[in-house]
């Protein structure tokens, strides 16, 4: 059993557990009221989306501007399933169906577009996300431009926590495996990676599909939280929102994405008071952070919980 959990995972689990208990307590004491609970849901969804995108952009080095497209696939799939089956089972089924649908589309879109690099790839993924949006805009089952209404709400803090914590743990595990290292090597030097026996196309598509899978989960939770879905919610700006979180937190840092998602959500909530000036302050802050910390808040490092708790790790254990 001792071998099954490295100290780092163990402490991450403790942190996630404590965060669950603390927020559950605050909700039950009504310190986090219904209004803040929406922000909380948004934070969780953004964390899931950003961690997934970080795997594609931060770790594998493939610049994608189409993450909102996969989110919409998850959202619509979940909405359709839960509407016809309004139970918790239906919600879970819808969420996983959404994630799997998004992953399938991730593979389908990834195979042709991932031949491209850098800015060409960004434009291609942007185009693909637009195609998905236009298709939803014209399909009957998705309600066209009017979208879907009255999607049963099943998201609550325990479910949000479950999916967020699951995403963080799974992506973190993946990164610290040989498959994850294969993805990172593509970011570092594609030609060298290929010469070391790594099928770069396969791992790029794999990273893309995994990113899309988690975007699908994020979308499903979004649908369940906000009752309504419209194709316009998943436009270009939504993709940019997620990308901003990844870049601000640091490309290749999971804790960075988590911190940035929380910071940006808190910031937007507090800036509500400034009405018109709100977006200017928000943008100005982003510019300031990028000038003084171009590599992102966490760069490519992770918050090391073991150091935080002053637990001595043996040499070599850190690499696990």
């Amino acid at each position: 059993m001792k071998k099954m959990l490295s100290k780092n995972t163990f402490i991450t689990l403790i942190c996630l557990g404590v965060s669950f208990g603390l927020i559950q307590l605050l909700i039950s004491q009504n310190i986090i009221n219904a209004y803040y609970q929406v922000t909380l849901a948004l934070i969780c969804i953004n964390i899931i989306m950003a961690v997934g995108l970080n795997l594609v952009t931060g770790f594998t080095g493939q610049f994608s501007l189409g993450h909102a497209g996969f989110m919409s696939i998850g959202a619509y799939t979940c909405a359709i399933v839960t509407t016809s089956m309004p139970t918790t089972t239906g919600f879970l089924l819808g969420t996983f169906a959404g994630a799997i649908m998004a992953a399938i589309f991730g593979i389908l879109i990834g195979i042709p577009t991932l031949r491209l690099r850098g800015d060409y790839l960004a434009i291609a993924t942007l185009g693909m996300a637009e195609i998905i949006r236009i298709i939803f805009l014209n399909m009957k089952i998705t309600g066209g431009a009017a979208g879907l209404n009255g999607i049963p709400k099943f998201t609550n803090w325990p479910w949000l926590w479950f999916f967020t914590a699951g995403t963080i743990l799974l992506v973190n595990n993946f990164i610290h495996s040989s498959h994850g290292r294969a993805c990172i090597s593509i970011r570092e030097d594609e030609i060298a990676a290929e010469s070391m026996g790594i099928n770069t196309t396969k791992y790029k598509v794999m990273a893309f599909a995994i990113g899309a899978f988690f975007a699908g989960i994020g979308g499903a939770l979004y649908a369940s939280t906000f009752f309504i879905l419209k194709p316009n919610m998943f436009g270009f700006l939504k993709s940019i929102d997620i990308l901003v979180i990844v870049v601000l937190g640091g490309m290749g840092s999971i804790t960075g994405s988590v911190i940035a998602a929380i910071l940006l959500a808190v910031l937007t909530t507090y800036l509500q008071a400034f009405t018109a000036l709100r977006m200017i302050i928000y943008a100005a802050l982003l510019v300031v952070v990028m000038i003084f910390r171009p590599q992102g808040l966490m760069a490519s490092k992770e918050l090391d919980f073991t150091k935080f708790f002053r637990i001595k790790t043996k040499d070599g254990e850190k690499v696990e």
Partner: protein
Amino acid sequence: MPLLSVEKLTKSFGGLTAVSNVNMEIQEGELVGLIGPNGAGKTTLFNLLTGVYEPTKGTVTLDIKGHSREIQGRKPYNITKEGVARTFQNIRLFKDLTVLDNVRIAMHQNIRYQMFEAFFHTFGYHKEEKRLIEEAESLLEIFNLTHKKMELAKNLPYGEQRHLEIARALATKPSLLLLDEPAAGMNPNETAELTDTIAWLREKFNLSILLIEHDMSLVMKVCERIYVLDYGMMIANGTPEEIRSNKRVIEAYLGEDVNNA
């Protein structure tokens, strides 16, 4: 059958024929040198052998343990899987990763756990990761890099980066190792040390080695046979002594004799 046989290999870039009608053979366990003036097409030949470029014409046949297959035009990762590993002329390490990770990545093609186990860190994952670390460390030990395993590759001194590249290539478990100017930028002491290491590696790992090198002291000392390229054509091949006195080779390096011209 020789381990590697190259027949009439040609690569043209538009009007320029960088490698033309090259024939070459490497026997099992042989240490062969490839020399030639700058721009002769040595690295292009390497890139053809490792799949970075697709040849315009010709075949490359690999024969490992009696199993022969043509590898020209295959993808690099595929050729690496068949047992050909390489280093690069201008070091291509994964700079922002640790020394250990550089070696572990090269071991990826032989790992024994699946995607599912990677996500859930199963028992099989931990067992396999432990094996990876042990094997990587034993490779690093050869080059005296074990104590630097957690350092980033970019922070290593130049000579050690070259060593790490060889260690990384060995991690793919090759039968044929291609070294592209392993001694470039090294001082005479380091070159002498590298010469010994290369000879030792061949014994220890049962390797065949093809190396491009400009440092003649290294080539003449370790290589059993030498191929000479000039303007994309193989102009000579033979033992170091034969090459040393070969008129065409001297002409290629120093220019034609004035009296003959």
